[in-house]
């Protein structure tokens, strides 16, 4: 009787441990294609499909929990505005099919599915979102992005198999950014973001997951204050006060000649005079340039190499009746225009949209 009881206990323990062991079984995921529109309208629900090839590499890869990640602007609030599911014709075990819905990862670290595994394959103590950002980066975007993770609701049995499937994402496009680069991750929670020991970078050959960044998505119908996350990042070289403004406001343009590339001074450091060269972009796409280095564009020294010019844009640019100004482009010049400071590191003007929160 006692021997029978011990046997039952061992079986019960195995039933708990085996699925966990299988999480660690090696398996490979490859993204073989991403079908994503090149542009989308703010507010619309965009459908993206990610084609995935799975290979168990001759292992008993049952009890897999599929892990999917998507890099999106934070303002899209993907946790509340996206649904994800996976589909495949593969059906080795009818109780664990390779099709089903995926669940948004809330980041509750007390739940095993939410416990991220980092580059060494061990539980890192972070959320999937945090580790994805740390290891995978945020593509060409300058900021304002987040990785959101989804895991399969059910186990998938992919033992000794190789098959293909599709992850389908339906997501509502936000209106705060006119451009952004999206990214897609596929793996499973047993290996997470693991790549082979000894590799210093997660190159495709050594990793247990796959990631793909698509071309920058163009978003139309955004708000007037929308920013292009694929464009040049904001800079401290120039700023506009107050922090919240529309172009009907009286605004103060500030230029700090000490804030050049990577902390170096700009070429206008210790200049005797500085002029703002400003371009207004109107809603119809036309531009008005004020770059005469005249009295109206002469900046006032207000601090240590800090120059300021206060303007009321409708009057300064003589915005025509019926037109709206949507963007301000700036560079700064010395008296004769032989020195021009643009966005450090980028050979283009500094760009400002309206900000009103």
């Amino acid at each position, binding site marked *: 009787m006692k021997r029978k009881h011990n046997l039952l206990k061992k079986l019960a323990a195995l039933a708990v441990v085996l699925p966990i062991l299988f999480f660690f079984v090696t398996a490979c995921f490859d993204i073989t294609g991403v079908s994503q529109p090149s542009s989308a309208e703010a507010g619309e629900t965009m459908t993206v499909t990610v084609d995935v090839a799975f290979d168990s590499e001759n292992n008993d890869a049952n009890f897999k929990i599929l892990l999917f990640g998507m890099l999106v602007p934070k303002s899209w609030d993907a946790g509340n505005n996206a649904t994800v599911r996976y589909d495949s014709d593969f059906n080795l075990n009818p109780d664990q099919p390779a099709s089903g819905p995926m669940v948004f990862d809330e980041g509750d670290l007390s739940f095993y599915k939410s416990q991220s595994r980092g580059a060494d394959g061990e539980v890192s103590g972070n959320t999937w979102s945090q580790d994805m950002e740390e290891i995978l980066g945020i593509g060409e975007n300058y900021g304002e992005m987040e990785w959101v993770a989804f895991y399969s609701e059910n186990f998938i049995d992919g033992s000794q198999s190789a098959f293909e499937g599709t992850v389908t994402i339906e997501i509502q496009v936000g209106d705060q950014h006119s451009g952004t680069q999206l990214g897609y991750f596929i793996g499973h929670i047993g290996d997470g973001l693991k790549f082979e020991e000894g590799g210093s970078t997660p190159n495709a050959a050594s990793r247990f997951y796959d990631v793909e960044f698509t071309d920058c998505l163009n978003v139309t119908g955004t708000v007037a204050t929308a920013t292009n996350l694929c464009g040049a990042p904001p800079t401290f070289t120039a700023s506009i006060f107050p922090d919240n*403004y529309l172009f009907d*406001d*009286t605004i103060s343009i500030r230029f700090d000649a000490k804030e050049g590339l990577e902390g170096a001074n700009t070429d206008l450091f210790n200049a005797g005079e500085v002029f703002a060269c400003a371009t207004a972009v109107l809603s119809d796409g036309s531009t008005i340039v004020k770059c005469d280095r005249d009295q109206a564009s002469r900046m006032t020294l207000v601090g240590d190499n800090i120059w*300021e010019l206060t303007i*009321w844009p*409708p*009057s300064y640019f003589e915005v025509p009746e019926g037109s709206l100004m949507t963007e301000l482009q700036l560079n700064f010049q010395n008296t004769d225009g032989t020195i021009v400071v643009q966005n450090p590191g980028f050979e283009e003007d500094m760009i400002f949209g*309206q900000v009103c929160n």
Partner: protein
Amino acid sequence: MKKIIIAASLLFGGMFLVGCEEDLTVRQDALNAFAVDINGSWELFSMSRNGEDLSGKLSFTDYSITINEDGTFSLSSSSVPFPTLKTTNNRFSNGTWRFDSDFQPTEIQFLNGSSIVPVKLDQPLFGTNNTNLSIEFSMGCGANTYLYQFKKN
């Protein structure tokens, strides 16, 4: 002794009664309601944005607003920011005006066609002989407040 105390109390109380009667004296015109009069030409002498003085940063020399008895108004220039000149609306630098209340106004409304642009009065106005006019408004983003102070020409 009792009589002395009563007499002293009556005398003391009487002093208060006399004092009250004197304090109740009120100027006759304080009881009359005047329609507030701001007709005339008003010159801008101070401009601030969110409490920051913009004098010297933005030129508004000789800028004035003329408010006429016939209910019309005009700005001396359309190059100085004013809420009737917002690019998001039909812009106008002249038109008609009215108070929200003729006797205790809290805002001035500037009108042109179907456009109505209200601005808040920052200081209460007298019925007559006003020499200062302070208005508060937003131009673009609602987070920003502008205060313009005019003096009577």
